[in-house]
Each structure stands twice: as C-alpha cells, then as structure tokens.
C-alpha cells in the first residue's frame, strides 16, 4: 500500500451545469495517460478507450431539442464493485480513497469491467501503437500498458505523487490546487474540480454540501468519490416559480 505522510481523500466534483461537452478533458486525458489513438476502426468495433468520456443525450423532439452532456470517468467508489472480483488484487483501494489498478498484476479476466456499473474500465485489445514519431510525445511518468490488461482513470496519480514529492523537496505540506488531473486542468468552463476532501479549507470540501449534489446510480450503494452537480434547467425553475 502507498504510504503518504498526511491522510488524504481525493474527490472530484463535476458541475453538469457548466459542462459544454467540448471534449477537451477527453483529449487531455488521452495525451497525459499515454492512451493510444482512437481510430475510426476502433470506434466502429466499439473498442475505443476514453478514460473520461462525454455521454451526450438528446432531450425533446426537433426543433426544440436539448443536448445534455455528462462526463463519466472512474468514480473511484468506496465500495468499488470492480475490486473484490479480481482474483489477483490487480484492482484495490489505496488509503487515499482511490481505486487503483496494478497493470503488472492484471491477467485480463475482464471481470472488473463487467462488474463496473459506470462502464469506466478499458481493455487493451492489441499491443498499443503510435504512428512514426508520435511515440516521442509519450508521458514518461505513465506506464504504456501492454496488450491483454485492464486500465482506467487513475485521477492522474502520477501528478499526485509528483506534487507530493515537490512539496517534500520544498519542505511544505500540499496545498489545495497543487494537484490537478489533466481533465480538470484542461476544462475551459471549470466544470471539473479536484481536491482533498479531508482538507477543510480546500475549495472542494466547501462545495461538498451543494444543494445540486448527487452521485451516479446511488441505489447501488457504491459511494463514488466523483460527485455530480445537477443541471439548472431554467424552464423547470420557471415552472416551479409559477406553482
């Protein structure tokens, strides 16, 4: 288990009301975490791997039709259904409340993916491949996963560790905002917010009691660490006002 000086519990808040569905987070994640390019072929085989994906739902009939966007990534559940089904402890829970995947340990039973209600785990169907020259942009902090193993969002654990190391060098404790996963960093509308919920004066712990707060599929009792804030629907608000 990873031993860290100060107890932390990382959480992410996704404000659906702010999300524009611009896919910047998807791209950033792709670049940060050495995910091979999702070609058309992969999409057609429905084998594309996007550790964070924007689910788009249409509401209503044309012409008055609404697009609703929902970024979905690994929810880092406290009771993660994906963990206990792994025969080799490749998926387990670390003491920072994160659901981590040990690539070297994974043997590729794909049971964890079946048991993930959020559909947030990805399998390496082939040996990863980058076009000539593109392998130079690989992130040295992140393993390139070989074929036949599962992978998923890590909350950019490499950035967390890096921040901790830097803080140690400077002889200080981590402050809020030290750590930002690629998706959070790249979100133009600040829809995503990441932080340590045990740190009382971090931005995230202040937002935790927001009225719009909810978690995905909470009837499953998985207790996700990714929290969503409801969309504010003007029409609905008006309707309520009239009543």
């Amino acid at each position, binding site marked *: 288990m990873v031993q860290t000086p100060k107890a932390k519990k990382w959480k992410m808040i996704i404000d659906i009301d702010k999300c524009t569905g611009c896919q910047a987070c998807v791209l950033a994640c792709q670049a940060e975490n050495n995910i091979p390019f999702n070609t058309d072929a992969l999409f057609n*085989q*429905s*084998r*594309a791997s996007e550790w964070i*994906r924007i*689910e*788009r*739902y249409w509401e209503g009939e044309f012409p008055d039709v609404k697009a609703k966007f*929902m970024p*979905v990534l690994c929810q880092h559940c406290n009771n993660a*259904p*994906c963990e*206990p*089904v*792994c*025969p*080799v*402890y490749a998926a387990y829970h670390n003491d920072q409340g994160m659901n981590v995947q040990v690539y070297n*340990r*994974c*043997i*590729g*039973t*794909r*049971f964890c*993916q*079946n*048991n*993930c*209600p*959020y*559909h947030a785990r*990805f*399998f*390496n*169907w*082939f*040996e990863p491949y980058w076009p000539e020259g593109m392998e130079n942009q690989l992130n040295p902090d992140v393993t390139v996963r070989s*074929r*036949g*193993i*599962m992978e998923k969002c890590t909350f950019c654990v490499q950035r967390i560790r890096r921040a901790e190391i830097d803080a140690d060098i400077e002889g200080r404790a981590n402050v809020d905002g030290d750590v930002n996963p690629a998706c959070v960093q790249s979100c133009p509308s600040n829809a995503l917010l990441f932080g340590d919920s045990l740190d009382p004066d971090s931005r995230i712990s202040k937002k935790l009691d927001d009225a719009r707060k909810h978690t995905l*599929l909470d009837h*499953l009792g998985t207790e996700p660490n990714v929290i969503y804030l409801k969309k504010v629907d003007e029409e609905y608000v008006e309707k309520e006002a009239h009543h």
Partner: protein
Amino acid sequence: MQERVFLPNKQINDDLLKGSFETPWWYLAWMALFAALTAWGVFAFGYAINKGLGVTGLNRPIMWGFFLTDFIFWVGISHAGVMLSAILRLAKAEWRRPATRAAELLTVLSLMVSALHPIFHLGRPWRFYWPFPYDFSRGIWPDVRSPLVWDPHAIFTYLIGSTLFVIIALIPDIAVLRDKTKGVAKVFYGALAMGWRGTPRQWKIQIVAGFLLSGLLLPVFVSVHSIVAWDFAVNIGTEGWHVTIFAPYFVIGAVHSGVSGVVTMLILLKWMFKWDDYIRQEHLESLAKLLIVIATVWFYFFFLEFIFALYNLEDQEIALRELQAFTWPYNLIAFVFLFFGYLIPVPLWLFRRVRRNWVAMFITSIMVNIGMWCERFLIIVPGLARKTNFNFSWGSYTPSWVEISIVVACFSLIFLLIMTFAKVFPLIPLFDIKEGQTLSDEIQIGKRTVPALRVEE
C-alpha cells in the same frame, strides 16, 4: 417391461472389450478428422496469444463471449457423470449399470476441456496460474474474495475427484484386459491393475467405494456449477445477472444438458460397437423419464428467474428482455433455446414410442444440448449488451473466426479424447453388468412373473 438378457461372462468380456481389440478404418478416419480440427483450434489460439484478444469479436461492453459460453456449456455437460452414476448408484437403480462409466468419462473429459476455456479467455493466458497461492517468494497472494479464485478450487476438486472415481471403478476391468492381452499391453495393464485378483474383500471395498465416492462427489458437483453461476450472479454491474436463483438454475440446467449428452453418447456407443444386448430400450426409456423430470424442474427455475427479473419493469430490464426476445439475431437464438431446450423434446418424451426409439432419442438429446448452448449465450451476451444504466454505451457482438474455430476445436477434442479412451479401456463396466446378472431374479404372482432384484442391506 424389462427385457432381461443373460450372457456368459466370457461373451460379456469379448463384446465389451471389442473396442480395445479391433479398430475399423472408419474409426481411425474420424479420429484423424477430429485431430485435424483440434490442431486448427490450437493454431487459432496461438494467433490470439500473438496478436492479443482483439482478434476475437469481443468489445466494450461485451467483454465475455463465446469462450465463457462454451466454458459453462462444458462444465454443464460434465455434470452428467456424477448426476447419473452417483445418484443412481445411491438410489440402487438397476438401469444405471451400462451408463455409469460413459457418464463419468464424459464428466472427466468435458471438465478437462472446460478448464481450458478460461485460459483462452484471459488477456494474458501465459499467467493463468496467478490465481493460485503459489508466490511465496514475492509474498503476493490471490484475493480469496474473488469468484475467480473459488472457481479453480471447485473445478480442480471436481476434476480430481471424478478422475479418481473413474480410475477406481476401472481397476477390475483393467484386470480383465490384463488377462486377455499379451506382451507390452499385458505389462501396461498389469501395472494399472495393481495385482487385482477379485477376492471377496476387494469386491466389497469396490462396492462400498462406489457409494462412498458418489456421496462425496455429489455435494462437490452441486458446488462447482453454483460457483460458476456466482461468477455472474455476484455482479451488480451487469443487467440480469444479479439473481439469487442463478446457482441452482445453472446446476439443474447443467444436469439437463449433461444427461442428454449421456443419452447421445450411449446411443452412439450402441451403434458403433453393436452393444444391443447391453444398451437396451429399457435404459433409454428410464433415461428419458428422468430427463422429463429434470427438464421440467429446470423450466420451473427458468420461469422463476425470468419473472423475478422482469416484474420490477425497470426500463433497463425491459430493454434487456426486448433484446433477448425480439431483436435479430437474439430472437432466433431465444427461439432455438426455448423450443430445442424444452418445448419440442419434452412433449415428445411423454410418448412411450419416442422414449424407446433410438433415432428419435438421438435427435432430441442433441436438440437439448443445442438449446442449452443457446441458453448460456443468452445469459451472458445480452446482459452485457445492455450492461449499464446509461444507454450511451450499449453494444452488440458477433464472434470472429478465432472464437468459432476454438469452440469447434473443443468439441472435436472431446470426441477425440473419448475415442482414444475407448481404444484403451472398456466404456461399459464389465463387472457391473455381471453383477447385475447375478442379482436379478423373478417373483411369481399368479400367472405373472415379476422381474425382481436380490438385495442385501
């Protein structure tokens, strides 16, 4: 009516050991064919290892496909053996005698083959041994909470148990072979017979052992398929899997397909080796009657599973059932599953004429297994295709040539193994048949002679 046939022991030996002493050309031809198919499967698997599982039809969200369908199917078939030989032995059913060895053999071989499937299915097959607690050097251990750790425990227990069961029951017949062969074969069989002479003591132990091992294997046999079922049922992530009845539903389904498999095998044996005096219509009829009961219980379980899954009328569940029942090609598979698995065979078996007809029973028993294969497919794939509550990532699945050839290879491997075994050992226990003759008797009531049995409590 039972038609009793009495044969001198010498003739029983000659008939039942036919397989070991004469090899017709067609026999070798078939074996060659199956060997070729198996070899092709081996190549396909090698290709999958080399390129990665991308060469299969699997995708997101359908992460489990043909391999596991076939895995469950063969584990199911493997439940024939203990079901028949153990339960009928404990129930002292006379008509078990010619069927036991075939059934147990089917158990062992199909279990071996089914144990291969998880390896085909792994992302990194060369690490198949990692779920075992072997790694003292690095102090890394498997997670005993995972059903995939329960699985190997169950399957290997069952495999070891049933293999030993077959071997123990073989010893007296091997002794017969030892006495009938010459030269190297004699040495070989002599070593296997371990100096069996047939003293009263040895026979008594043989009989007691039969009961004892049956009693021990029965609970194992139930647990094996239950655990296989729990691989699915513990899932809260996949629609239609998180059902409490899955374990017994799988077990009874397994028995259904397994006993049908035994019927198929017995009929084939009768045709191949002309064993008309040993595999008789009365056996066929009793098996068919047993099948009616099993199939009906299985259908009741299926009914419960279906109703209980559906009655909440949650949208996702409705979507799943809609996919299973009305969407091409799943609707065809569902049709085959329902009609081949139950609705056609069982009503036919109600007629005595069908139960005693070899061809009809052959066809129906094969139909059942086709139906059961489809059932397993319908449990795994549609559930995954409608996996998440968000319909954003619903999917579909078509197997690739790799999966199909590996499945075909597994079928032919089974046939190959059975035919090889039949060359070396008798597929009907000789001493069991002889004992049956010693114990059979008649009772005269008025003008009628009732077939009777000499029993010793």
